[in-house]
C-alpha cells in the first residue's frame, strides 16, 4: 500500500515567502511615507522661495524709487531687525527673512558685471562677497535707449564677458530685475559679513521688467508750452496738427497768443481732435480743422513743466572733455580749430578768410594741432564726421572761449540769403531796411529790447530819436508792436536814426550793430560767413552722430553757446547748453534713410534755433524735413526754420514727438514775470507735434517722488 509523501518545511518556506512579500510592502511604506512628506516639503520650498524672491523685488523697487541710480551699491547692513536683514555690497544684495514659525528664506540680487570699472554696470569689480548666480539685473531707468540684459558665465569667476551680448533687452527707462529666492537648510543662519547661504538650498529665480507707469503725471500733457506767443507759419492749405501719445488730450499751452498763418498772413488751420488750446485770452488765431476744439484761458498759476538746470543731467566736467572753440571742416576733410567763440571767429575769419587756424585732424588722424588738443575717448573722428560715444563736456579754454562751434568753412546759414536786404553793409540804414521789410524780424527785434522811456506813452517802450514828432519810435511789447511812425519811410528814417546816432541803444541792450545786422539778415543769412574761398562743403556734408553703447548715455554739455552746422544724428542723446543752441543742417535725408527720426534731447538756457536748410548749389536752396524725438526745452525762444518768405525755396515738414517747452526764463525761479521771452516760432510746410513725456526721464538727474512702476514682463525659472 502506498503512502502520501510528506514535504517537510513547506509551511515555513511558504511563510518566509509571504514574509518577504510583507517586508516588501513594509519597505515600500517606509519609502513612500517620507516621500509624501517630502513632496509637501518641496511645495513648501517653492512657495517660500517664491515669496522670498517677491520680497527682493519689493525691496529693489523701493530702493530705486528712493535712488533711481540704485544698483545694490549700498554698503553693509541696510535693514537689521530680528526677522529681516538686508545687506548690500558692491552691486550685490542679500536679504534674509525669518517667518514666525522659525522657517527661513533668503533673496539675492546681482547688478555687478565683474568686468572691470564701469563697462555697462557703472560698478567697479567687487572686493567683497559675491553671489554665485549668473543672473544679472540691469537698471536702465535713465537711458533713453534699450540695453542688453547680460548673463554672467557659470564658472567660479562669474563675470559678464561682453555686456553688449545677450538674448534680449530691457527697454529705455526700464529696469530688469532678476531675484533669486532661496530656502532650505542653507538659509537657517545668516552672517551679514558673509551673507552667502551655508549649505543646501532650494532656489527659485524670478525675473521681471519694470517700466515707469505714470509718465503722464510727470508733466502737463501739452505738446508745446510757450511763455510768449506761439506762431506757426505753414504752407498754403497745410495744417498744424497735434496729438497725444496714449490717447491723452492733445494740448497746446501759450501764455501769449497762438496763431497759425498761411502765406500772406491768412489764418491757417489747426487740427487736434478733441484737443484743448490754452492762450492768454482763450482765443485761437487759427481755424479749428477738427471742429471739436476746446479753448481755455491759460491760468497764470498753472505752472509749465519746470525743469531747472540743477535737475538736468549734464556731462561731468571731471569726465571726458573737449576744448571749447570753433571747429571748422574744410573740403579736403581736415578739421581746423580756432580758440574763439563763434562771434569772435566770424569777425576774425571775415577779416582773414584764408586763416587756417590749428589743424587738429588731417589725413584721417587726430593730430591735436599745435595746441596739442587731446581727443576725448568719447569722441571718434573721421573725415567730416564726429561721433560722440559717451558724455562729453565742452571745457572752457584759458583764452576764455566757452562756445562749441562745428561748421563748414563757408559757414552754415540758417536760411537763404534775403534778396530784399543790402548785403555786406553794416550801417544802420541796412538794418532799418531789413527790419522794415520783415514784420517777424521787426517784432522779434523790438519786443526783446529795452527802451529808455524818455518820451514814450505810458505802458510802452521806446527811444526818442529826433526830438519828438513823427520820427520818434516806441513799441508796446511782444506781439503788440506798434510804431509811432506808421508809414514805411518814416519807420526806416526813425530806425536808421536810432541805429546810427544812438550807440547807447545797443549798449543798453547788450549787442553790437554788426551782430544785429547779421542776426536780422542785413548782411546775408545768419550763420553765413560768405568767405568766398571756393570751399563747397555744406552742413549737409558734415555729420555729428551720437552713438552711445548699449545702456550708456551720451550728453554733450557746454557752458557757452553751441552751434552745430552738421547733420545731427543719434538716439538717446542730449545736448545741454548754458547759452544758445543752434543746429543747422539737422534735416534727415529721407530719401537715403526713410522714416529716420532724430532722437536727441535739447536743453538750452538761451534760444534754440533749428534749421534744415540745404544748399543745392548755384544759389538754390531748400529746407529738408525733420522729425525730432525728444525733449526740446529752452529758457528763451524756440525757432524752427524749415521755410522762408522766399516762395522759390521749398519748405520742409516739422515733426516733434516729445515735448517742446519755451519757458521764457529760469525754471528754478518759477513763472517769468513777462511774456517777452519764451516764444515759439515755426516756419515749415506743415507742423506735427505729438506729446510723449517719456523723454523727460532722459534729461533728469533725479526722478520725481510720484514715480510708479509696473511690470511688463514676468518669468519664473526652476
Amino acid at each position, binding site marked *: 500500500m502506498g503512502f502520501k509523501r510528506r514535504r517537510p518545511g513547506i509551511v515555513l518556506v511558504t511563510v*518566509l515567502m509571504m514574509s518577504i512579500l510583507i517586508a516588501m510592502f513594509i519597505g515600500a511604506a517606509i519609502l513612500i511615507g517620507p516621500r509624501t512628506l517630502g513632496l509637501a*516639503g518641496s511645495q513648501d520650498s517653492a*512657495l517660500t522661495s517664491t515669496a522670498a524672491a*517677491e520680497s527682493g523685488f519689493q525691496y529693489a523697487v*523701493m530702493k530705486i524709487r528712493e535712488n533711481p541710480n540704485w544698483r545694490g551699491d549700498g554698503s553693509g547692513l541696510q535693514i537689521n531687525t530680528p526677522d529681516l536683514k538686508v545687506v548690500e555690497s558692491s552691486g550685490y544684495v542679500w536679504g534674509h527673512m525669518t517667518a514666525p514659525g522659525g522657517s527661513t528664506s533668503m533673496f539675492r540680487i546681482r547688478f555687478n558685471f565683474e568686468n572691470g570699472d564701469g563697462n555697462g554696470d557703472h560698478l567697479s569689480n567687487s572686493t567683497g562677497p559675491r553671489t554665485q548666480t549668473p543672473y544679472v539685473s540691469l537698471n536702465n531707468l535713465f537711458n533713453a535707449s534699450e540695453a542688453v540684459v547680460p548673463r554672467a558665465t557659470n564658472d567660479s569667476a562669474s563675470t559678464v564677458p561682453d555686456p553688449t551680448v545677450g538674448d534680449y533687452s530691457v527697454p529705455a527707462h526700464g529696469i530688469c530685475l532678476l531675484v533669486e529666492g532661496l530656502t532650505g537648510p542653507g538659509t537657517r543662519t545668516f552672517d551679514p559679513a558673509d551673507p552667502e547661504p551655508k549649505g543646501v538650498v532650494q532656489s527659485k529665480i524670478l525675473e521681471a521688467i519694470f517700466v515707469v507707469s505714470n509718465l503722464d503725471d510727470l508733466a502737463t500733457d501739452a505738446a508745446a508750452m510757450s511763455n510768449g506767443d506761439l506762431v506757426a507759419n505753414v504752407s498754403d492749405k497745410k495744417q498744424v496738427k497735434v496729438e497725444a501719445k496714449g490717447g491723452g488730450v492733445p494740448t497746446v499751452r501759450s501764455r501769449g497768443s497762438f496763431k497759425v498763418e498761411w502765406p500772406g498772413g491768412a489764418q491757417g488751420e489747426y487740427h487736434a481732435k478733441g484737443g484743448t488750446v490754452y492762450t492768454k485770452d482763450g482765443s485761437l488765431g487759427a481755424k479749428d480743422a477738427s471742429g471739436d476744439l476746446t479753448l481755455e484761458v491759460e491760468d497764470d498759476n498753472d505752472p509749465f513743466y519746470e525743469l531747472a538746470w540743477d535737475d538736468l543731467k549734464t556731462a561731468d566736467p571731471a569726465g571726458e572733455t573737449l576744448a571749447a572753440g570753433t571747429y571748422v571742416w574744410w573740403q579736403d576733410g581736415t578739421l581746423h580749430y580756432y580758440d574763439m567763440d563763434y562771434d569772435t571767429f566770424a569777425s576774425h575769419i571775415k577779416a582773414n578768410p584764408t586763416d587756417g587756424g590749428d589743424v587738429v585732424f588731417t589725413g584721417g588722424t587726430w593730430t591735436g594741432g599745435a595746441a596739442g588738443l587731446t581727443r576725448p575717448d568719447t569722441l571718434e573722428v573721421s573725415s567730416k564726421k564726429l561721433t560722440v560715444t559717451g558724455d562729453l563736456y565742452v571745457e572752457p579754454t584759458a583764452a576764455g572761449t566757452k562756445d562749441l562751434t562745428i561748421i563748414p568753412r563757408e559757414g552754415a546759414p540758417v536760411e537763404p540769403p534775403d534778396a530784399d536786404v543790402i548785403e555786406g553793409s553794416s550801417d544802420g540804414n541796412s538794418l532799418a531796411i531789413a527790419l522794415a521789410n520783415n514784420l517777424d524780424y521787426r517784432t522779434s527785434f523790438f519786443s526783446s529790447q529795452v527802451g529808455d522811456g524818455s518820451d514814450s506813452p505810458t505802458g510802452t517802450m521806446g527811444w526818442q530819436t529826433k526830438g519828438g514828432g513823427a520820427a520818434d519810435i516806441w513799441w508796446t511789447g511782444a506781439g503788440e508792436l506798434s510804431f509811432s511812425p506808421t508809414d514805411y519811410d518814416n519807420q526806416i528814417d526813425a530806425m536808421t536814426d536810432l541805429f546810427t546816432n544812438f550807440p547807447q541803444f545797443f549798449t543798453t541792450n547788450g549787442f553790437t550793430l554788426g551782430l544785429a545786422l547779421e542776426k536780422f539778415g542785413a548782411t546775408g543769412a545768419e550763420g553765413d560767413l560768405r568767405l568766398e574761398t571756393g570751399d563747397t562743403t555744406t552742413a549737409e556734408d558734415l555729420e555729428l552722430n551720437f552713438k552711445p553703447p548699449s545702456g550708456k548715455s551720451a550728453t554733450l554739455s557746454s557752458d557757452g553757446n553751441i552751434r552745430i552746422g552738421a547733420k545731427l544724428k543719434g538716439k538717446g542723446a542730449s545736448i545741454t547748453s548754458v547759452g544758445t543752441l543752434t543746429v543747422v543742417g539737422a534735416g534727415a535725408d529721407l530719401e537715403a534713410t526713410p522714416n529716420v527720426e532724430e532722437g536727441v534731447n535739447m536743453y538750452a538756457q538761451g534760444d534754440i534755433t533749428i534749421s534744415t536748410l540745404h544748399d543745392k548749389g548755384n544759389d538754390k536752396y531748400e529746407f529738408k524735413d525733420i522729425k525730432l524725438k525728444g525733449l526740446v526745452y529752452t529758457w528763451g525762444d524756440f525757432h524752427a526754420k524749415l521755410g522762408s518768405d522766399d516762395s522759390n525755396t521749398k519748405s520742409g515738414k516739422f515733426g516733434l514727438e516729445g515735448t517742446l517747452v519755451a519757458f521764457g526764463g529760469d525754471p528754478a525761479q518759477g513763472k517769468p514775470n513777462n511774456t517777452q521771452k519764451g516764444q515759439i516760432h515755426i516756419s515749415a510746410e506743415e507742423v506735427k507735434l505729438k506729446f510723449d513725456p517719456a523723454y523727460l526721464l532722459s534729461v533728469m538727474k533725479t526722478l520725481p517722488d510720484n514715480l510708479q512702476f509696473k511690470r511688463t514682463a514676468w518669468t519664473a525659472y526652476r
Partner: protein
Amino acid sequence: MSRPGTGGTNRTAIAGFNLIELMLALTLIAIAALTLVALSFTAVASREKAESISDAMLVAEEQLALAVYSIETIPEADHDAFWDNSLTAPFSEGSARIGPTDYNFRVEATDVPTGTLAPNRLRKLDITVWWWSENPGEGRVGSGQLSYSASRLVREIRNAPI
C-alpha cells in the same frame, strides 16, 4: 519493507518538526503583520500630515496673495490709516475649511525700518496657518507640530497699479 519501530520514530520526528515549523511561521507572520499594521498607521498619518501641509500652504499662499493685493490696492481714504500707523492687531485672520479640516490663519504686517518716506515704505507680511489646535505651535500626538508659516515684503503703492 519498513520496520514498525523505526517508522514510528520518524513519524514522531516529522510531527514535531511540523509543530516547530508552524510556530515559527506563526511568529514570523505575527511580527510581519504587526509591523505592517504599525507602518500602515504611520503611513496614513504621514500622508494625512503631508496633505494637511499642502492644504495649509494653499491657504497661506491664497491669504498672502490676498493680503498683498489688498494692501497694493488699498483705497485712498484708508491708505494713510494703514501705512502711517503701526498695526497691533493682525492684518487679517480667519479660517478656511478644506475637506474635514479647519485651517486657521493669521496675517500680521510689521513695519520695516527702511528710512524711506511715504509713499515708498515697506512692510513685512507674516502668515501663520495652523490646524488641529487652538494656537499655532501646538503639537498633536503622532503628528508633531501642525502649523505652517511664511513671510514676504510688500511695498507702499499709492493710486497706481502694481
